[in-house]
Every structure is written in structure tokens, then in C-alpha cells.
């Protein structure tokens, strides 16, 4: 039986007990009512007897008074019959006291006969003596009936008292027992569930089985609903946590991008300004030198201005290339790597000669590469020119090698040199913008390697470096399918 059915049963039992109790109280009160009616009956009979005594002693007959007295006497048996309900009649039949009701009916008949004889007397159909005799007879019967009525009523009332009071008590006791039992089963099923839920170290499958076998329908439904609700809440919580994490990482990456941009703007403007302010001062010196006739110094300073301007030009070209590196170009062509190397070698010829280096390139490509040529040119040129710039004067001969080949689905570019090498502590910063690590050969803009990295990231490729005092090797790996 589920909890709500048990609760309904408790309500029904309580209502029944209350009804039986109230009914019993009414029934017991009815016993008193019968006695009261009989007492009234006797009183009115007595009243009639007094009027009759005076008539017999010769007083004139006041039919109205007598009629009124008889009507009053007739009233109690009528009420008595009205009071007795089906149950009373049934009980009276069983305990054999139903003669009380017969007596009532007889009394009414006697009263009716008496009333009839009054009308007969009034119409002079009977004589005064006949009337008096009839009335005497009626009074006699009234008294007789009243006496006879007392005994069965007493018996009935006693019966009601001795049956209803124990009945009420028994029903109440039963009610208390059943209600206690039901409430105990309800509270124990809740308690069991609580114990089951608060028990630890049980795997979920076990717990589900236990819940299945140990709980009633409604609690099971409650548990299922609670489980679903908790699951949903957990999901929501997880979801909002995920969202928070996404917002956090995105904010962080935006912040980083913003910081990088601010750093870039500052460094770019600084590096652009630096050769300009140098040139500005140098121009002043030239004027002074010419004034003082120091032509040699003036020429030196003019050369320095020229160098500054070249530096500035290179920087502007690099910054432009860097700005373009983020944007995809439509300019996709078949790349002739041989020609690319030839063109580059021409551009870097002065550096190769100045630094007394040798440069050689090998190419082993099984297929034609179709991509944005400018990016490849910039990757290779920056790596090679770095190798040339940072050559080691203390080594007998300096070289830079470039090896381009494909392997599986990858295009690989390896640029190696026997130059100064990059000290370990700076290797992690090689691809940072505006970073330079060598003081004597500070002709670079500090953008070249950042640009290389940008191009490689654009192709979803990778770059790694190995460096020691013996030299440096950069290895670029580009996935073929991302190149075009």
C-alpha cells in the first residue's frame, strides 16, 4: 500500500470513529428523552384525572378543556414514535422491547377514541354518564400504558448504554492501533530511504537496486524526480563552468593579443624613430663639420646617415611584411624553388661576401608546390640571412646551408650554419618580436624571426631549432595540404 492510500485510510478511520461517537452520544441522549416524555405524559394524565374527578362530583363538563388535555396527552406518544428510527426499531425487535412502540400506538388510539366521544357528547349522541364512563376508561388505560411503557424503555436504554459505550471504546482502540501502525510504516519507509541515501561507499548500480527493492512507489517517484533534478542542476553547473572557462580563456587570449599589439606598436614606433633621430643628429654634425672644414668627418657622418636610412627601409619593409603575414593572399603560383634561391642569393650577395661565408642550397622535391611564393621567400631568406649575419669570425670557414625536400605529406626546409649559435637562455625568445641576441652584429630589425613564425603558423606548420656554439639548425615542417 502506498503512502497516500495509507493516509486516506487514516482519515476514513478517524471520521468513522468520530461518527460512531457522535451517534452514540445522540442515542444515549434519546434514552433520557423517552423518560422525559413519559414523565410529561403522566403529568398531563394527572391533569386530566383532576378535571375528571370534579366532573364526576357534579361539575359541568367543559368539553374544550378536556379536549385540550387529551390533545396534550396524545402528543407524547406521537413524539415517541417520531424519535424511534429504523435502528432503534431494529434493536427493540432484537431485545424484545418493541411493545414500547405498540403502547405508544395504543395510547394514540385511546386518545382518538376519547376525542371522538367528546364530539359525540357535544352532539348529544351520548349521555353525560356514558361520556364519564368512557373518559374514566381512557384515563385508566393511559395510566396503565404509561406504567407499562417504563419497563421496555429502561431495558432499551440500558442496552444502548452497555453496547454503544464499549463499541465506541473498542473502535477507538482499534483506530489508535491501526493509525499507529500505518504511521509507523510511513515513517519507517522514509527512514529506510534516508539511511539508504546517506550510506557511503556504495556504487551507483547497487544503490539503484536497493532503491528499487526497498522503497514504495511514491518515494521511488520522489527519488527519480530528485535524481533527474540533481542531474539537470549538475549539468547546468557543468555547462556554466564550461562557459566560464571559455570566457576566461577567450578573455586571456584577447588580453594577450592586445598586449602583443601594444608591445608591437611601441617597439615599432621606437625602432622607426631611432634611425631617424640618429640621422637628425648626424645631419647637424655634418653642418658643423663642413663649417669647421672637417670634410672627412662630414663624409663619415653622411655614410652613417645612409646606413641609418637603409636600416629604416629594411625595418619598414619587414613591418609591412609582418602586417601582411596575417592576411591570406590570392597570389598563388607554382613555386620555382631554384629560381627563388637564385634571386635570394643575389639579394644577399653583399652579406655573403662581407662575412666571407659560403652558401649552398639543395632541393629534392617530388612534386610541384603551388602556394603563396612570397611567404616561402620570406621564410627562407630570413633564416638564411640570420645564418649569414651571425657567422662566427673565429671559425676557419663559415657556411650556411639550405635543404628543401618533401617527405610523405610534408614539405621540409632545413637551414643550418656553423655560426655563433644562440645561447640556451635566449632560445625560447628567438621568435619574439624585436629580440636580438648578438651585440656586435645588431644590424637586424628583430622582426625577421617573428615573421618566419607567423608564416609557418599561417600554414599550420612547425619550426624547431637546435643550437650550440658549433652552429644553429632550423627545421621547418609544413603540411602539404595546408600550403595551398
Amino acid at each position, binding site marked *: 500500500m502506498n503512502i497516500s492510500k495509507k493516509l486516506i485510510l487514516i482519515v476514513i478511520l478517524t471520521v468513522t470513529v468520530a461518527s460512531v461517537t457522535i451517534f452514540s452520544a445522540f442515542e444515549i441522549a434519546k434514552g433520557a428523552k423517552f423518560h422525559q416524555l413519559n414523565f410529561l405524559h403522566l403529568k398531563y394524565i394527572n391533569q386530566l384525572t383532576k378535571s375528571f374527578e370534579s366532573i364526576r362530583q357534579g361539575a359541568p363538563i367543559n368539553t374544550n378543556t378536556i379536549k385540550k388535555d387529551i390533545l396534550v396527552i396524545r402528543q407524547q406518544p406521537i413524539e415517541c414514535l417520531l424519535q424511534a428510527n429504523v435502528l432503534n426499531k431494529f434493536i427493540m425487535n432484537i431485545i424484545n422491547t418493541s411493545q414500547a412502540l405498540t403502547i405508544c400506538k395504543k395510547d394514540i388510539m385511546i386518545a382518538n377514541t376519547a376525542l371522538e366521544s367528546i364530539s359525540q357528547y357535544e352532539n348529544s349522541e351520548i349521555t353525560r354518564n356514558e361520556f364519564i364512563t368512557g373518559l374514566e376508561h381512557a384515563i385508566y388505560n393511559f395510566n396503565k400504558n404509561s406504567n407499562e411503557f417504563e419497563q421496555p424503555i429502561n431495558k432499551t436504554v440500558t442496552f444502548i448504554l452497555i453496547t454503544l459505550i464499549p463499541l465506541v471504546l473498542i473502535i477507538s482502540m482499534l483506530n489508535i492501533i491501526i493509525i499507529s501502525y500505518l504511521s509507523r510504516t510511513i515513517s519507517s519507509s522514509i527512514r529506510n530511504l534516508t539511511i539508504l541515501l546517506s550510506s557511503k561507499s556504495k556504487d551507483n548500480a547497487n544503490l539503484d537496486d536497493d532503491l528499487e527493492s526497498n522503497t514504495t512507489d511514491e518515494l521511488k517517484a520522489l527519488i527519480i524526480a530528485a535524481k533527474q533534478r540533481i542531474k539537470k542542476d549538475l549539468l547546468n553547473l557543468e555547462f556554466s563552468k564550461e562557459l566560464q572557462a571559455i570566457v576566461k580563456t577567450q578573455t586571456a587570449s584577447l588580453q594577450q593579443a592586445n598586449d602583443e599589439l601594444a608591445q608591437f606598436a611601441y617597439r615599432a614606433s621606437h625602432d622607426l624613430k631611432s634611425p631617424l633621430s640618429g640621422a637628425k643628429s648626424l645631419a647637424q654634425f655634418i653642418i658643423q663639420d663642413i663649417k669647421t672644414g672637417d670634410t672627412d668627418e662630414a663624409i663619415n657622418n653622411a655614410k652613417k646617415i645612409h646606413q641609418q636610412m637603409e636600416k629604416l627601409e629594411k625595418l619598414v619593409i619587414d613591418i609591412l611584411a609582418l602586417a601582411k603575414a596575417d592576411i591570406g593572399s590570392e597570389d598563388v603560383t607554382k613555386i620555382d624553388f631554384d629560381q627563388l634561391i637564385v634571386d635570394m642569393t643575389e639579394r644577399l650577395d653583399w652579406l655573403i661576401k662581407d662575412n666571407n661565408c659560403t652558401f649552398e642550397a639543395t632541393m629534392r622535391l617530388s612534386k610541384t608546390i603551388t602556394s603563396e611564393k612570397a611567404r616561402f621567400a620570406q621564410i627562407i631568406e630570413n633564416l638564411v640571412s640570420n645564418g649569414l649575419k651571425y657567422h662566427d669570425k673565429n671559425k676557419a670557414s663559415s657556411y650556411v646551408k639550405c635543404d628543401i625536400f618533401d617527405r610523405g605529406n610534408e614539405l621540409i626546409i632545413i637551414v643550418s650554419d656553423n655560426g655563433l649559435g644562440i645561447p640556451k637562455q635566449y632560445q625560447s625568445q628567438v621568435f619574439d618580436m624585436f629580440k636580438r641576441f648578438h*651585440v656586435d652584429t645588431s644590424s637586424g630589425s628583430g622582426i625577421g624571426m617573428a615573421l618566419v613564425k607567423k608564416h609557418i603558423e599561417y600554414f599550420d606548420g612547425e619550426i624547431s631549432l637546435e643550437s650550440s656554439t658549433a652552429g644553429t639548425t632550423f627545421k621547418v615542417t609544413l603540411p602539404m595540404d595546408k600550403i595551398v
Partner: protein
Amino acid sequence: MNTIKPPILIIDDDEVDRYVLKRLIKETQLPLNIFEKKDGQEALDFLQNYEENKKEDPDGFPPVLIFLDINMPRVNGIQFLEEFAKLREIIEVDSCVVMMFSSSAREEEKEKIMTYDFVKDYLVKGSFKADELKEKLLSIIDFSLYEN
């Protein structure tokens, strides 16, 4: 008359910038013994080699004033100041002060720079003339100490 010139140190990676500064110093006609280092690392190595340098050149070391650039390879100006502050606790360079010498600096960098009490001034490259430089040098270096 045997005059000892006050030693000063220029730390800047840009050859032209060093040349410009040297020439302006020359124009002030102040007698100074100029040392040059190309970045913070070189300068730190130079200063850390205190004992040896002092022995070699007792009057020319340590420098009384450092002109310090900010953007340099390896150890930049900001990093140099951090290391130099530590160095000041170990070796006797208390009389040595720093004058920043850069074309620009970010606000947060300037704030950090100015927290060091041994940083006396901030010169912006290309924005000053020889007579201004002379004034600043005279306010920092007491040349009377070097006249015999």
C-alpha cells in the same frame, strides 16, 4: 698638471647613437674618460670585474656616470638596472649614478626606472644640444674633485 678625467660609461647597442652622444660630450669640452659597452650584459661583465679593473685603472674605475639605453639585445636597460641595484650592494659603486638615454619608453617602464634613486635623469635621444648636456653633466659630476 696631471689631470685625472672622471670616467663615464655609455651603454647602447646602436653605434650611431653612441657616436652622437660621444660627439655631444666632446662639444661640451668637459674632460671625461668615456667607456662604451654594447648592451647590459657587457656592461655588467665590466662592472662585476671590479677588482681587476680597479687594479688596472685605479682612477678610471668605477665610472661616476652611466648613460643607459633601454632597448638593447640580451640584457636591456630595465634588466640592467635590476642587476645594477643588486651589484651596488656588493661593490663600491655608490658614487655611480645613471642617466637614461633612450628615444622612448613606455609609461610603466618610466615609473619603474624612476623608483631607483641612483637614476638621476632621463635624456631623450635627438632632443637635446651640447649646452644642455653640459649643464646636466656639471650638476651630476663634481669636476673640482678631479683637479690636482
